[in-house]
């Protein structure tokens, strides 16, 4: 089996969301569903004034772009009652068999990466499938090809590891600890990134990541 994986260069991302909007264009998604989200995370910190009234601030802000991580141990497939949410044996890509999905929403609840959603009009769960048809045709997923900063990659896991020797499996805030699902998401950490289990901050763009 070849396991595909995403790579995110957190030190290049500017939070522009071109990845998210290119995905919405390609997959014809409306304003209510996104397969990829960009989280704006602020660590703890405070503004402090000195005797002269001058300001300094500690802590930082950074963006993280996340879609489905096609996890080794997906939370979504585990809870799926019908087996519609499944992990492909050849590619490791997690996708929905729309003929079997009942739209119960368990995958949505369980996934700690906010990847699957239930589209009630379509009558089933929807999510990132790694643009399988593009990858099958030798292209990159639309988000990868869209990123103005070349911060995203998608390739077989071994290639991602080989091409990004300093990258690690994603284990930074605001993402969950990698142990929950063993995501196939490798990252170069954004400056000032906090470890997932040592998170002090909050996502501030909560209305933009529904």
């Amino acid at each position, binding site marked *: 089996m070849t396991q595909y994986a995403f790579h995110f260069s957190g030190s290049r991302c500017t939070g522009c969301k071109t990845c998210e909007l290119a995905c919405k264009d390609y997959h014809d998604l409306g304003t209510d569903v996104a397969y990829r989200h960009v989280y704006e995370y602020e660590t703890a910190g405070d503004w402090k004034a000195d005797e002269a009234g001058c300001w300094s601030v500690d802590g930082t802000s950074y963006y993280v772009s996340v879609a489905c991580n096609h996890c080794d141990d997906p939370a979504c497939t585990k*809870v799926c009652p019908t087996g519609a949410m499944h992990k492909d044996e050849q590619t490791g890509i997690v996708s929905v068999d729309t003929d079997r999905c009942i739209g119960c929403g368990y995958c949505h609840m*369980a996934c*700690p990466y906010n990847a699957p959603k239930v589209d009630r009009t379509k009558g089933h769960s929807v999510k990132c499938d790694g643009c399988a048809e593009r990858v099958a045709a030798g292209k990159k997923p639309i988000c990868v090809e869209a990123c103005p900063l070349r911060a995203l990659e998608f390739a077989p896991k071994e290639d991602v590891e080989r091409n990004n020797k300093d990258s690690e499996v994603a284990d930074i805030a605001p993402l969950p600890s990698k142990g929950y699902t063993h995501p196939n998401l490798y990252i170069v950490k954004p400056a000032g990134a906090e470890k997932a289990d040592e998170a002090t901050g909050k996502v501030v763009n909560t209305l933009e990541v529904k």
Partner: protein
Amino acid sequence: MASAFAELPLALFSTLAPMGAGAFLILAILFSTTKVDDAAAKRIDRFTAIPVALVIVGFIAAFFHLASPLHAFGVFAGLGSSPLSNELAMGCVFAVVMLVYWIWASAGKMSAGVRKGLLWATAVLGLVFAWFTGMAYMIDTIPSWNTFAGPVQMIGFALLGGAAVAVLVLVLAKNSDVLKSSPLKTAVLIVVVAGVVCGIGGLAAQAAATGGMANALASGADLVSGAMVVIICGAICLVGTGVCDAFAVRGANAGALVGVSSGAVVLAVVGILMLRLAFYAMQLSAGLSIM
């Protein structure tokens, strides 16, 4: 809290179905401890339609929660691995046994031994079903739900709500005098108290744990405080259910019995529904899942 209303069909399912299921426990105790004459049994069987209907309405509500109900026959594919498959499989086994019992009994050709056997099977399966309903939410990526306080709540709701439904059945079947007979009276009181303790206690334990959790999107304390009014109102309703049923078994006069026992059921429905909504409002992901 507002987002929990998106889960209203599920909340209705997990309110009504366990209440219907729990009622069979009292009926099983009744038929095991008390001699019930045929006429009375017939009347009781007629009003057993109430818990049966609650279970069916509950399942229909769950059906409406699905985006593609027509695919629902596939839900058993995940048996063993998906807690939802387990829950629904358990629910179906229970429902089938319940229906077999009720149809058979209503047909009027059931021996006392078979009745006792089937009733106990229904009652036990009903409680297991309630437990599995709680288990369905024990997902390790949702720490605020991943606690046995969840299934304990569901058992509590089944016991308390079921007792209230069973008392109403007996009152409507004009068999209220059996309630005053010592074994059943004691049984009802024990079940009611156990239900209040498990239901409210389970939810309180879960809320206390959730209050200490946080993820990058929300803090558990905010979720709990957002749901606090609903939790308190729900808990008061459940205590009210218990008080009504205590009245019913401890000498409410015949005239008041229908009112008191119906009131107990209404309070149970409202109270359990509120606590179920509060439960959904306390969903806190280990990561970024948003209700």
